């Protein structure tokens, strides 16, 4: 790069750091939602940069469906310990036990959508006025319409047709009591940007992103990882394959890709040549054309 020029990753980094500092300045009690996936990992990495040499001035929050990859949970706990950051964990199981959420049953049952209940309860209980998420606009078409600072009414709902315009680098986080904001610091990053950045900055990520042997089965064209609480249809059969995760979420709805990529360079190469979107393997988005929009309106991540 020539003098006084920064590359696209540094420019995206600078933009995200600006957003993170705006959050710390404009809100009293923000939290950063942390799933253990790559997007929340780089969001936390950016937060460390934004406040260096001070510690990140807010807690992380994980909504635990109880249906996780073990590695994710270990990674989460190790990260909190390493950087001395508070990790708040809210359990979907608690919402079910308290009768606030009703678990889906049958084949394809997932706790993904009832996470919203646990999330909104958690935000209310802790009086959180801003929850940062690692959502990216390139992930899904409803997300493409999302603001950096996304206003939520007192019920936690999103009104996509009545969003505040965002101009220059002026972000309006003003709100009434009981309302909150969702803020998406990495809105403008694509999947490729995220991987290039992980490579450039050499950021630690869970081993699930690299190739490993796993028992999987095929459903609706996607490979799903097997877990004891997942029901198989008669036609489905478990096989062991070399796979890696392209996204990490609740195990019941996160597809895995057949891959032998065992280092970051290979992953970047694989992403560059892949012809399917990363959420293409997510059963939760396939439920209908507007599945994401509907979940987001209710208060989903």
């Amino acid at each position, binding site marked *: 790069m*020539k003098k006084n020029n920064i590359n696209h990753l540094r420019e995206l980094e600078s933009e995200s750091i600006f957003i993170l500092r705006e959050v710390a300045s404009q809100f009293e009690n923000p939290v950063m939602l942390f799933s253990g996936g790559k997007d929340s990992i780089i969001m936390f990495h950016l937060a460390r940069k934004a406040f260096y040499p001070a510690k990140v001035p807010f807690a992380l929050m994980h909504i635990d469906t109880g249906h996780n990859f073990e590695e994710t949970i270990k990674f989460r706990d190790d990260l909190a310990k390493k950087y001395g950051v508070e990790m708040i964990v809210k359990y979907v199981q608690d919402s079910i036990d308290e009768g606030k959420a009703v678990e889906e049953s049958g084949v394809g049952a997932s706790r993904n959508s009832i996470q919203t209940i646990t999330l909104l309860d958690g935000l209310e209980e802790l009086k959180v006025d801003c929850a940062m998420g690692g959502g990216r606009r390139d992930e899904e078409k409803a*997300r493409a319409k999302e603001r950096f600072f996304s206003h939520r009414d007192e019920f936690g709902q999103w009104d996509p*047709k009545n969003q505040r315009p965002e101009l220059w680098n002026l972000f*309006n986080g003003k709100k009434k009591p009981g309302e909150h904001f969702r803020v998406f610091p990495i809105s403008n990053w694509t999947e490729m940007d995220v991987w290039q950045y992980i490579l*450039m900055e050499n950021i630690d990520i869970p081993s699930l992103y690299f190739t490993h042997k796993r028992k999987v089965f095929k459903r609706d064209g996607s490979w799903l990882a097997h877990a004891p609480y997942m029901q198989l249809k008669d036609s489905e059969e478990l096989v062991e394959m070399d796979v890696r995760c392209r996204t990490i979420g609740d195990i019941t709805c996160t597809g895995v890709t057949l891959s032998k990529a065992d280092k970051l360079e290979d992953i970047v190469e694989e992403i560059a040549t892949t012809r399917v979107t990363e959420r293409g393997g997510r059963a939760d988005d396939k439920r209908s054309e507007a599945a994401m929009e509907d979940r987001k309106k209710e208060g989903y991540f």
Partner: protein
Amino acid sequence: MTDTNTTGGYLDMQLMRFTTAGSVDDGKSTLIGRLLYDSKSIFEDQMEAIELTSKRKGEKHVNLALLTDGLRAEREQGITIDVAYRYFATPKRKFIIADTPGHIQYTRNMVTGASTANLAIILIDARNGVIEQTLRHAYIASLLQIPHIVVCINKMDLVDYDEDTYNKIKNQFMEFAPKLDVKDIRFVPISALKGDNVVDRSTVMDWFKGSTLMHILENIYISGDQNYIDPRFPVQYVVRPQSDEYHDYRGYAGRIDGGIFNVGDPVKIFPSGFESKIKSIDTLNESLKSAFAPQSVTMTLEDDIDISRGDMIVKTNNLPESSQDITAMISWFHEKPLRLNGKYFLKHTTSDLRCMVKEISFKMDINTLERNFDDKEVKMNDIARIKIRTTKPIFYDSYRRNRYTGSFILIEEGTNETVGAGMIV
């Protein structure tokens, strides 16, 4: 996306933001679809999904607009409601498209998309030539000081790829170009549907010797769009670690809005007027000797001065304007008209204050580019020149000089909604 992304070439990629404006049926969605498709940024599952939807709706061709219309209401009504952001990359650049709807009532979305853009694509239907909306789009691009405009004369396939038609439209546009404040205007005859001159050079318009749209997007010089002359650093956040290791550390965090700052530079702080020198410029990775717009950094100063969010650090030899009385062009966003003598919250750089509207000087007729001194009711989507008085002085540059220190937004006190965007004259 090609293998250049993997070999370290990605470290030399530049970020470019552009906006697309066009009237309904000018083929804007088709053009975006074409750019995404030809740069291999559309994935198979996305393509399958829109093929399925197009078929279900009984449409003959795959409707690429479905890729960009993300909301249910948009797909149902076949219109674009809100700014949508799209991304694609080539080995040279990563692009962010702010795709803004072209309807008459959506000036606010166009202004929003334009506020951060390096370049604007304005689409003209070759069959219709320059129409009222073309003028409006060009004016907004000029008002928002988008440095580069590319006028794409689309649907050339429907006018037999005729050179005269292209020249006629180009001349029509150039007739009112002197009224605009844009330095760089280029023209490309295209067919978004057939792909002529979008990514690949047209084989049927050999009379056109200029660059294809993609060639312009990839190569146009944008490094000079940033202000590297006037050093401006609005303090966003004060970093105080209060740890043993950094006991007395007091860092001023922010994003540089203009110019270059070096360690050792003499600086002045507004509003206090105190002077000091830059002691260090810190980031997690390394301490820097110098930093420039648009980097986010943390600075420390030689002297212990009381500085907080909303203050501005500048170099002593290059000071911003300072005043409580501001003249600005305002783009109005809200159904409730602008209130003369009304009070609003005002956000300018990192400072929050209040202001009162003292005068509405004139409204801009954006269809004729004439000033209207009679009708002064500023309604949604109107653009006007106003005078405001702020509760305390702000430190600014004219918007033409710096888009970031020269802009502000107005917020309605009762509803907290963003109601207007201002560009300081």
